[in-house]
């Protein structure tokens, strides 16, 4: 039966398709081809339908009727019949697009992790600097790194020869320690050549000439700057705070300093040579939360435009997607006693990352204080909201911090005091649960934890 059955099935399918095409030609072109042509197409179409539905189906009859209908359709088909390569492929792309839109809207949506707030569970964008003069991998090596790790290669040539002037700004981190950062401005740029997006622009000076470096908005170039311009010095805090006496300083005050790089660059040669490795890309399940309530420990994605604490100083909502771990349900009381997070008086359970954070194992840093969550304070989650925290607690801007710093809306403090949900995730803003890391091909590939 196998092969014979297959060919019969195929013939039936082809015949059926031709019947549909005839219908399409009639529907689209009946006013142009005239009644007589429509009638003759109808006649041949009906003959084919009869041949297809005859029991048992006679292959020879079907083939003959298909040939007749084909001959009849050809002069009247216009751009619909015979099917051209172009129209067939356009249709295929459209069908694929419809499927993709359907799947993305209701079932699985891809999401790219921008920052390292959930590290080491999920990695955000990371940079790898190539020491100047040693050169980057070959084109084939770069292609391999692009495919496996999503590494984009950046080379910025020096506009002049000499040492690079690097500006650093001083501030304090979440725990109050002084830190140094290379300042940047936000400029508009392009993504995939057409989509407009925002980028970070870092500016350095070489011999009076500006040297601009544009990177994705969420990428911090500071470690690359430290590795490239101060190769033996460790990180930028060491360069600009602890060991500042070892470097040449042009200007310095409490808020900022301008340092000269340890090495010189040559005009036309690379001044910065580095790769940006893409953040983990994962699928978010948009379906399950329509039927099941989110649980503590779920890595979940939510929109931020209804979170007051994330509004800019002028009140503009922050319209982004964030991924954090759900640590508090409505009614829960949370408290941090570094490195442990307590939920309703007990160490929190529900995900492996909690335990690893308590023990500070596998690069998990342990839970720390930030913003509203300080020593001895507790936070109670109001009805209709969730509490979100990142696994990389000291470097995660989450429910502990939203609205508590100078960058947020000035009303956040008053509203928080008045008991308004400034720093919680509204239930309606939850998009779904992270389920699968599909790219890049690292050890994290697989089910999302």
């Amino acid at each position, binding site marked *: 039966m196998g092969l014979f059955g297959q060919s019969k099935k195929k013939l039936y*399918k082809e015949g*059926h*398709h031709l019947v*549909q095409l005839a219908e399409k030609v009639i529907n689209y072109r009946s006013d142009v081809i005239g009644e007589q042509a429509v009638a003759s197409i109808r006649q041949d179409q009906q003959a084919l339908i009869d041949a297809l539905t005859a029991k048992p189906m006679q292959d020879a009859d079907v083939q003959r009727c298909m040939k007749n209908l084909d001959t009849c359709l050809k002069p009247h088909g216009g751009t619909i019949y015979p099917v051209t390569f172009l129209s067939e492929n356009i*249709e*295929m*792309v459209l*069908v*694929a*697009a*419809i*499927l*993709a839109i*359907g*799947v*993305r809207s209701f079932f*699985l949506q*891809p*999401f*790219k992790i921008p920052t390292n707030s959930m590290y080491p569970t999920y990695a955000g964008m990371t940079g790898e600097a190539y020491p100047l003069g040693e050169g980057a991998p070959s084109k084939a090596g770069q292609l391999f790194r692009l495919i496996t790790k999503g590494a984009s290669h950046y080379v910025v040539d020096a506009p002049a020869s000499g040492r690079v002037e690097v500006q650093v700004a001083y501030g304090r981190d979440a725990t109050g320690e002084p830190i140094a950062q290379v300042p940047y401005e936000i400029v508009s740029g392009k993504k995939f050549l057409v*989509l407009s997006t925002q980028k970070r622009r870092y500016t350095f000076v070489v011999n009076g000439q500006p040297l601009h470096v544009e990177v994705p908005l969420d990428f911090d170039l500071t470690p690359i700057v430290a590795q490239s311009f101060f190769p033996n010095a460790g990180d930028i805090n060491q360069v600009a705070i602890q060991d500042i006496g070892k470097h040449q300083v042009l200007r310095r005050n409490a808020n900022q300093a301008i340092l000269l790089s340890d090495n010189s660059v040559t005009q036309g040669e690379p001044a910065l040579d580095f790769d940006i490795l893409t953040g983990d*890309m994962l699928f978010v399940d948009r379906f399950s939360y329509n039927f099941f309530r989110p649980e503590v420990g779920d890595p979940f994605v939510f929109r931020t435009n209804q979170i007051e604490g994330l509004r800019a100083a002028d009140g503009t909502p922050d319209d982004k997607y964030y991924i954090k771990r759900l640590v508090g349900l409505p009614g829960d009381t949370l408290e941090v006693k570094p490195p442990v997070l307590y939920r309703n008086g007990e160490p929190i359970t529900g995900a492996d990352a909690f335990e690893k954070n308590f023990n500070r194992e596998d690069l998990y840093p342990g839970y720390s204080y930030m913003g509203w969550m300080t020593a001895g304070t507790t936070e109670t989650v109001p009805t209709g909201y969730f509490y979100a925290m990142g696994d990389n607690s000291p470097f995660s801007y989450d429910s502990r911090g939203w609205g508590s710093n100078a960058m947020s809306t000035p009303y956040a403090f008053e509203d928080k005091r008045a008991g308004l949900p400034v720093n919680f995730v509204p239930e309606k803003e939850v998009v779904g649960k992270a389920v699968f890391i*599909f*790219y890049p091909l690292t050890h994290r590939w697989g089910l999302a934890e």
Partner: protein
Amino acid sequence: MLTLDPQLLASFAGFSARSIFRTINIMSNYTLFKLKAVIILAVSLCSLSL
């Protein structure tokens, strides 16, 4: 509060159902090769994070 007109909702549901059936109908005529191509393309589009 936003209220939805039941008639509008019904016609939208009808439209959605028709679109789904039409897409399935088109795909039912595909050869295995073409079906594979469509699925690969759809998965690629699904994975594209814009």
